[in-house]
């Protein structure tokens, strides 16, 4: 009994102990949650906050997959000089200064004295604050060490004495920021674009909604180790990255074009210049350069003049007026026309050829080849010069060819061609159109077009009359590899009848062979094109005029691959003729691109098109193999099978898992469709045959329902 009592007593004692302990815990809980609740909750806020999480901006690529613009991190480095102990600081400051001087400029003694002074200053301020003077800055001792370091430089810096001690002993503070980098510097800068808070330009602007990553507010919590994790779903760490934009630009061609244009501008001391290369068949822009003379005399991309600068085109427009005349059927290549020796008066105005050649009779083709203003003007006058009916016919002819429309390129800033409409009054209530309008328009005056708009017509002629929409972006690929392709678009199937196009080609060929561009010939290469020399402010009566020199054309002549326009604005040298100033740029580019075999498009994932496996429904394979009597090894028993060459033909089970993207490569369309749709995916198909590529990689979880498959 005695023993039992003792035992019970002990149990009660322990029990009471527990009860007291529990009461204390409950008491503490109450105290923490209710009495001190607000204080703790506000402290909790420090470890939990709403943060703006911004997804990384997508990159821009050229047609080969070269990076044109991307977001790279850079690092601003500060140092908290008060963190390190005096002894440590004094030991390390010497070697640190030496290292800094060696890699980041300035001399070692400069670094050392600056850092030491800042540290002493910080010490003094800290003492003042400690004694209650709160007027002094609280971030004394923080010293901005270096700005805009690359990752490589940061890694190096982290090895330096003092800084290698880290944040809490050395005082190294690293701020990570991102900047937009264009590896190819100024090449096509205005077209690739500039991403900035206000006034974005180029593709960065037009495709901003694709490029930019999603920004969202998220409740984040801090876990030890300076890491912020989202409150709700911690695994979903990466916010949505922007899509990548793949352009039609080709950096090899861009290289050639940029440098040839630049050297021509330097030679002729021109104000600015543009050059555009377009692929004839598709309308894809392969290179675009817009160079302007800067105040220091060097040339840099400044505005997208190729797309936005409207000027009177001058003689390059003669191709378009010739098309209109030929299409009317009232003139042929061999029709004799009068050149009046190079000077003719229309009403009150004199029209001159570039020089007084004295020729009277010439065929239409000859007049075009030597770029006779009078010849073209007079021919147009005879066909379209009749008031109202003739004028309207000319205007309608331009309209039918699409001269009045924008090309619709993706860059903002393209303007509608400025072409006067007969019968419409201008601002001063004067009828726009007069007797001189047709002859002047015929040789490229009294109307304004951009270089791109002119080039597009040369491209259409090269492309057998098919007017393409010039474009710069071929594909947008999102984070998950799903791509949207932009295929070439036809603006007008035929700008003129096939016969007229053939005649136009012959005209351009004549210019290259015996006309104003015959000086550009290169042995072994063929081209066709038209020179242009536009006199600026020609209505003024001065001794010397400013000129724009241009050349538009395509090469090779027989099977045009590229079309190109070069415009040099206000050359200040001795030469100002299109053939002398702009033509050589065209010739050199043509020369350097000869033998250059196009490009290959960037694949979403670089997988060879050769199939090593066939796969599909097992029963079908068994039936076929049994029928032709081939031996095969069978393994597994699932419905889907893969056939592989081996020692024997092997028929293996193919694993299909729910919620995992299957590998449908090697399957026919029917099997692939059935398989993917049975998993609930939406399938987009391109091509015929067997699947060689799929937009979502096999083996990853099905996050997006859409998948695209490519058949060879």
């Amino acid at each position, binding site marked *: 009994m005695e023993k039992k009592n003792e035992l019970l007593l002990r149990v009660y004692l322990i029990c009471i102990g527990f009860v007291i302990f529990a009461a204390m815990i409950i008491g503490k809980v109450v105290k923490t949650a209710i009495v001190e609740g607000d204080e703790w909750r506000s402290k909790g806020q420090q470890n939990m906050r709403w943060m703006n999480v911004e997804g990384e901006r997508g990159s821009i690529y050229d047609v080969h997959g070269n*990076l044109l613009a991307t977001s790279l991190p850079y690092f601003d480095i500060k140092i908290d000089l008060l963190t390190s102990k005096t002894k440590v600081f004094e030991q390390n400051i010497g070697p640190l200064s030496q290292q800094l001087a060696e890699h980041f400029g300035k001399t070692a003694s400069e670094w050392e004295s600056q850092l030491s002074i800042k540290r002493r200053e910080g010490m003094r301020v800290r003492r003042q604050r400690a004694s209650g003077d709160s007027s002094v800055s609280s971030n004394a001792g923080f010293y901005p060490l270096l700005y805009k370091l690359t*990752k*490589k430089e940061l890694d190096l810096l982290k090895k330096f004495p003092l800084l290698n001690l880290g944040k809490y002993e050395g005082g190294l503070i690293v701020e990570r920021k991102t900047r937009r980098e264009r*590896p190819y510097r100024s090449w096509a800068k205005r077209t690739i674009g500039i991403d900035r808070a206000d006034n974005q330009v180029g593709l960065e602007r037009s495709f901003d909604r694709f490029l930019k990553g999603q920004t969202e507010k998220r409740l984040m919590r801090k876990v030890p180790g300076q890491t912020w994790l989202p409150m709700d779903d911690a695994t979903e760490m990466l916010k949505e990255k922007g899509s990548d934009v793949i352009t039609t630009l080709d950096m090899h061609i861009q*290289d*050639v074009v940029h440098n040839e244009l630049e050297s021509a501008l330097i030679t002729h001391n021109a104000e600015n210049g543009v050059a555009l290369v377009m692929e004839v068949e598709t309308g894809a822009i392969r290179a675009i350069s817009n160079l302007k003379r800067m105040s220091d005399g060097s040339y840099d991309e400044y505005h997208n003049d190729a797309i936005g600068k409207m000027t009177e085109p001058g003689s390059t427009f003669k191709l378009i007026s010739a098309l209109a005349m030929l299409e009317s059927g009232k003139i042929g290549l061999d029709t004799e026309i009068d050149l009046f020796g190079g000077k003719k008066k229309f009403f009150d105005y004199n029209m001159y050829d570039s020089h007084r050649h004295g020729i009277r009779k010439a065929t239409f083709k000859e007049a075009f080849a030597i770029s006779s203003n009078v010849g073209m003007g007079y021919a147009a006058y005879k066909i379209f010069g009749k008031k109202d009916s003739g004028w309207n016919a000319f205007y309608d002819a331009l309209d039918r060819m699409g001269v009045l429309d924008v090309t619709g390129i993706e860059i903002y800033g393209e303007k509608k061609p400025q072409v006067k409409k007969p019968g419409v009054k201008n601002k001063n209530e004067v009828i726009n159109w007069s007797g001189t309008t047709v002859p002047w328009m015929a040789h490229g005056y009294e109307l304004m077009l951009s270089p791109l708009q002119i080039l597009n017509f040369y491209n259409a002629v090269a492309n057998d009359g098919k007017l393409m929409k010039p474009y710069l972006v071929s594909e947008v690929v999102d984070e998950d590899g799903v791509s949207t392709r932009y295929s070439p678009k036809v603006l007008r199937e035929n700008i003129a009848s096939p016969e007229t196009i053939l005649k136009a080609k012959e005209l351009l060929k004549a210019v290259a062979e015996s006309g104003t561009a015959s000086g550009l010939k290169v042995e072994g290469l063929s081209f066709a094109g038209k020179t242009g020399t536009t006199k600026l402010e020609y209505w003024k009566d001065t001794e010397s005029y400013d000129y724009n020199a241009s050349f538009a054309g395509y090469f090779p002549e027989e099977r045009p691959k590229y079309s190109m326009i070069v415009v040099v604005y206000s050359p200040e040298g001795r030469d100002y003729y299109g053939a002398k100033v702009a033509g050589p740029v065209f010739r050199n580019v043509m020369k350097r691109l000869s033998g250059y075999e196009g490009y290959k498009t960037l694949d979403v994932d670089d997988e060879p098109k050769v199939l090593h496996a066939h796969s599909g429904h097992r029963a079908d394979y068994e039936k076929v193999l049994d029928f032709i009597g081939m031996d095969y090894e069978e393994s597994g028993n699932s419905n889907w099978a893969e056939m592989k060459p081996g020692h024997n033909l092997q028929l293996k089970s193919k694993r299909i898992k729910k919620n995992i993207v299957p590998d449908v490569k090697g399957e026919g369309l029917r099997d692939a469709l059935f398989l993917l749709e049975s998993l609930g995916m939406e399938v987009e198909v391109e091509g015929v045959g067997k699947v060689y590529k799929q937009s979502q990689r096999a083996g990853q979880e099905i996050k997006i329902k859409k998948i695209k498959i490519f058949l060879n």
Partner: protein
Amino acid sequence: MNLILKHTGFILLLSVLGIVYIHNTHSAEGKLRKIAKLKKEVSDAKSRFQEVKSDINFKSTESQLAKQLEESGLKKNDEVPILIEITES
């Protein structure tokens, strides 16, 4: 009292589960931290790769190569390349 004694096993189980739960939370958090760190490392490595790659891409363009080779006396071939076309007979 008997109640406690009677359910000792269950209470023990509960405490073990509690410990497992706490441990699990901690290790999960640790892993997440590691993931975040590795992801940062990957993105850093990626950006280093891009820095270097884009530098190389630019330096290996025709015009830049020509500039660098100027001193060595190597020049671009100014002649038009000869294309050999084979027509099957």
